[in-house]
């Protein structure tokens, strides 16, 4: 048991150190959310009025946090396609530890990466006039942790089943973008046509965006508890999916 925790720690530590050493990646990954926040946020914001009394840039801020988590987490997970080709991973898979241990270590690693970015975005939020309270910050962190765990697990599960680099492209096209666009990150859910509302229901990120918007701006479609419940359920599903995929993953 102690050994299991040590192994999880070891894998997490590796991911964390590698992340910290790839500074260009950290900067790069922050750039995209900033583009959205300032260019799209200001551009669309100048010609759109929401039915609710808040400017568009502030309105999409929780959405941009979610976007950052979606991209970072799923990319991180799907990166395992690469990892398996020529990396450290084979040497980890030959160690006397279970695949579940590797999976949890990796997922925590991806979660940490996403959370570092969330913290940076929270600071940027101050500059566009977001007002935090202690409660709201704790809520944002909690929701972000769940969403990043959920999505890293999904990315790892999908990535471990793919064998070619086209697989990565497929995940981006058919998973990452739909997760983002259907989440309500860029628009309110209230006046959507039925078919679109129907689709957003199946996107776990929808509930994260809703919960984050609830804590930062006090605007929400569902109750905070309901959002959390659905996030938890989704996390259990993607975690089981990821563990099962890891157990079946070919080592060589």
């Amino acid at each position: 048991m102690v050994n299991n925790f040590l192994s999880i720690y070891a894998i997490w530590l590796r991911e964390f150190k590698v992340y910290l050493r790839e500074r260009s990646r950290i900067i790069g990954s922050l750039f995209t959310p900033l583009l959205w926040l300032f260019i799209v946020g200001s551009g669309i914001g100048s010609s759109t009025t929401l039915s609710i009394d808040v400017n568009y840039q502030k309105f999409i801020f929780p959405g941009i946090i979610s976007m950052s988590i979606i991209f970072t987490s799923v990319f991180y997970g799907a990166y395992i396609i690469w990892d398996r080709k020529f990396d450290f991973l084979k040497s980890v898979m030959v160690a006397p530890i279970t695949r579940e241990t590797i999976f949890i270590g990796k997922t925590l690693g991806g979660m940490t990466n996403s959370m570092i970015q969330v913290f940076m975005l929270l600071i940027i939020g101050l500059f566009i006039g977001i007002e935090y309270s202690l409660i709201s910050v704790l809520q944002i962190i909690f929701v972000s942790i769940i969403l990043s765990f959920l999505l890293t697990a999904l990315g790892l599960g999908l990535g471990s089943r793919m064998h070619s680099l086209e697989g990565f492209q497929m995940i981006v096209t058919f998973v990452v973008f739909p997760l983002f666009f259907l989440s309500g990150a860029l628009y309110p859910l209230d006046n959507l046509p039925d078919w679109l509302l129907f689709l957003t229901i199946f996107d776990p990120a929808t509930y994260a965006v809703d919960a984050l918007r609830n804590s930062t701006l006090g605007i929400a479609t569902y109750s905070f508890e309901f959002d959390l419940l659905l996030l938890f359920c989704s996390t259990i599903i993607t975690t089981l999916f990821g563990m099962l995929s890891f157990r079946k993953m070919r080592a060589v």
Partner: protein
Amino acid sequence: MIIIKNLTKKFDKIMAVDHVSLDIHKGEVFGLLGPNGAGKTTIVHMLATLLKPTSGMAEINGYNIVKDPAKVRKNIGIVFQAPSSDDMLTGFENLKIHSYLYGVPSDLRIDRIKELLKLVGLYERKDDIVKKYSGGMRRRLEIARGLIHKPKVMFLDEPTLGLDPNSRKSMWDYIQKLVKEEKITIILTTHYMEEADTLCDRIGFINKGKIIAIDTPEQLKRMIKNNSDNTTDKYIGDTIKLYFKVPDARDSQLNNSHILTKNIEILKSFKFVKKVEQEKESEIKKLVVLILHVDNINHNLPIILKSVDKVESIEFSQPTLDDVFYTFTQGKIAEEPEGGFMERYAQYDKK
């Protein structure tokens, strides 16, 4: 230490490993020698529990590779053919992370890591990021990593592939040092004959997934078949050429045949001489040349020289493993280009 029975792996239509049976003894360095695509890596992957055999079984230190993979893993260390150290971490960090994964007790951890870094000559560079290591250093770090939990068996898959000749020689030294200091069983794969010859106690020749011969390098070299006559049971061994001077040129015909018959008689009386023949078209007129094939040239050459007439000069050659391999495959070697896109991309020493 390792028992392999009819181990087989089929990928779709390719028989990568075809009913391989082997016994590898405790403390020996066993070489799997064969061309690219022969199935060496596939065997290693199966023994290391990373790949399920299609059929057959193997045991390592008494543990079955299919039924008890966790126990097997505790008993083995492995250096993969492609680089597998983490190039964003330092050498020290690489070892530390693996010491956690293998549950090395915390009070021994640091000492063990330092000891291994010294063994592979990387102690001074332990805090450098692996990206800055040369191919040979990287491979040595991976050897140290494979030893972190004091395994009983170590797999080295093409340990010098992609290294320049100097690094290769120094890698051999490190491997020999490792054999002496760690006293473990080693299975080494290679497609370099010279490497197998230098490092291994026994060698298994493998071609197209099948083991075609297993023996010590010396025995294998003795087994080389005489290619000129097509008998399969006759091995020519080492070759010696003896040059005799013709004493009087006036009646060379007579003298020649006299010298020949006399010496051939003497030579044929030795048990270790397999075959004696006269070189048919001797270039130099005043010399008679005999070609003989003998066992154990080092021991027997002095005996021969004592018994025959005065010899003008001698030439001799010992077969290399290349010859042996060629003989066994009759030149039908199934060589494949090395790896796919990814494997080539992942070669050592290539940035």
